[in-house]
């Protein structure tokens, strides 16, 4: 029995906080949030949002489970299958999270409430859909009060989306550095001139940034300024304007290196079929409940693991691949699959206050099975990572590993070596098996028909 503890990320909001007790997640609602919490329920807003899949559901438990004195209620929220962060989302995931936040704000206003924050970290993906997880984000709204979260919405959502759509999709990674969203003056400086011609971006980013700059010192110089008045139609118009600005942002992935991977490789149709059959069989043999598919590309093999009953996170380096996978998922309907962005040579680190607010990749594991198909040559050859180091990195992530060894005879490897010196004498099937034998034992090794590749199902030695 571990001692109960507050979640490291849950400390800014005085209304309450998240904590775990005996491995169960709870949310303590403090007395100061009483009126707002009652309004959330009595107005029907909670029920309406939960029924539409926009807000995480919870059940109320005994206040005796509270971690600290002063609790009004203790909630047990439905846990999210996997916690992901906005810098791991593809363009459309961030856009959908933004639109969901604005829709929630509209619904709140209809019932006399408003979102008091608009952080991208308040949204998580469940079964492929964005869901607000912060039940305490709502407070009663009186006409005249400005939207406190306007700045935060523009920084967390509008700015990075505009940069991804108008400059380069990779600028979404700025969210790793700027934990409270992209500063508006930075976004304004980076956006191209044509963005000034779009009303939404001109207003909510460029002019907004100017206003921020102008008033940066004014509080110090003149004292607290008059809080301005925003009418109901003004507030509704503001939200509508933001919806329009976000809605118009689009990113069409141009052909990228991996976008056409399967059309472009040396897999014959028979090889593809055999690989599909083998993966299906080997995943089923492991009966995993949770899977990480590293280098999952557009999620073709990830979906085999979903079909086997697992919750799968499909990680890939290429924003276009993750985007395609996510858009496909939206059409398929809700299922336990989450496509996310990841650079395995520089995986998500623990960041935020005291480097404890946002968890690293490894901290969000382990899972039952890791899949590493058509991946190892990119790590060992393109990135010069020794095979032993790859095995050491993968071992703590899961007790079982399904990995495809891609030898030098393969045309993909030939392509990687085409423009560089072959210094990889130790990249051989024997060396691969020896490197991994240090950490794993082989359960099965199956060559893929009509190719030189071999699929291995490995079990970690201590598992």
């Amino acid at each position: 029995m571990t001692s109960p503890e507050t979640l490291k990320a849950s400390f800014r909001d005085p209304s309450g906080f998240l904590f775990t007790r005996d491995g169960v997640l709870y949310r303590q609602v403090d007395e100061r949030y009483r009126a707002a919490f009652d309004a959330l329920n009595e107005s029907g807003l909670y029920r309406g949002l939960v029924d539409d899949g926009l807000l995480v559901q919870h059940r109320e438990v005994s206040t005796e489970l509270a971690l600290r004195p002063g609790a009004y209620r203790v909630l047990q929220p439905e846990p999210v299958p996997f916690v992901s962060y906005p810098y791991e989302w593809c363009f459309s995931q961030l856009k959908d999270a933004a639109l969901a936040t604005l829709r929630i704000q509209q619904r709140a206003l209809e019932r006399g409430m408003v979102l008091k924050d608009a952080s991208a970290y308040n949204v998580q993906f469940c079964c492929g859909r964005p869901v607000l997880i912060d039940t305490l984000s709502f407070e009663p709204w009186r006409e005249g009060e400005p939207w406190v979260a306007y700045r935060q919405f523009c920084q967390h959502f509008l700015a990075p989306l505009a940069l991804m759509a108008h400059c380069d999709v990779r600028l979404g990674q700025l969210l790793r550095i700027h934990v409270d969203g992209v500063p508006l003056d930075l976004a304004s400086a980076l956006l191209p001139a044509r963005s000034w011609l779009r009303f939404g971006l001109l207003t909510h980013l460029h002019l907004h940034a100017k206003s921020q700059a102008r008033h940066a010192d004014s509080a110090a110089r003149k004292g607290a300024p008059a809080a301005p008045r925003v009418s109901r139609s003004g507030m509704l118009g503001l939200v509508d304007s933001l919806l329009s600005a976000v809605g118009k942002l689009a990113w069409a992935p141009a052909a990228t290196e991996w976008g056409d991977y399967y059309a472009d490789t040396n897999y014959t149709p028979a090889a593809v079929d055999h690989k599909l059959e083998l993966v299906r069989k080997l995943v089923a043999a492991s009966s995993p409940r949770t899977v990480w598919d590293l280098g999952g590309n557009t999620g073709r093999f990830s979906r085999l693991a979903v079909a086997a009953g697992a919750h799968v996170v499909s990680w890939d380096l290429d924003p276009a691949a993750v985007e395609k996978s996510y858009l496909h998922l939206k059409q398929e309907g809700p299922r336990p699959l989450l496509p996310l962005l990841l650079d395995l040579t520089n995986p998500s680190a623990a960041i935020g206050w005291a480097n404890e607010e946002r968890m690293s990749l490894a901290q969000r594991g382990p899972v039952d099975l890791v899949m590493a198909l058509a991946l190892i040559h990119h790590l060992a050859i393109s990135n010069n990572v020794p095979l032993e180091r790859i095995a050491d990195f993968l071992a703590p992530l899961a007790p079982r590993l399904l990995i495809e060894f891609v030898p030098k005879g393969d045309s993909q490897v030939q392509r990687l070596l085409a423009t560089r010196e072959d210094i990889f004498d130790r990249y051989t099937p024997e060396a691969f098996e020896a490197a991994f034998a240090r950490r794993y034992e082989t359960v099965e090794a199956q060559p893929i028909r009509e190719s030189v590749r071999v699929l291995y199902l490995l079990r970690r030695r201590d598992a």
Partner: protein
Amino acid sequence: MSRIGYALALAIAVQLVGPREAQAYIDPGTGSFIFQALVAMVVGVGFTLKLYWNRLKGLFGRRSALPADATSPPAKDEGDVS
């Protein structure tokens, strides 16, 4: 200043000045607050006009177009990835 005038000025000042909800814990940003009021005035007018325009169109039997939905599938058909 007359007492009525003073009371009026005070009433207006109380509306304009003074801290708002204690629950709002994030920093709204001074520039963002002021700017928002300006934007809200502009878009508020536009929004109200849009509402009345849609109602007018509704009277003539034409449904107004619904804005982009977070949960609707994308317009472009992605097809199966192979």
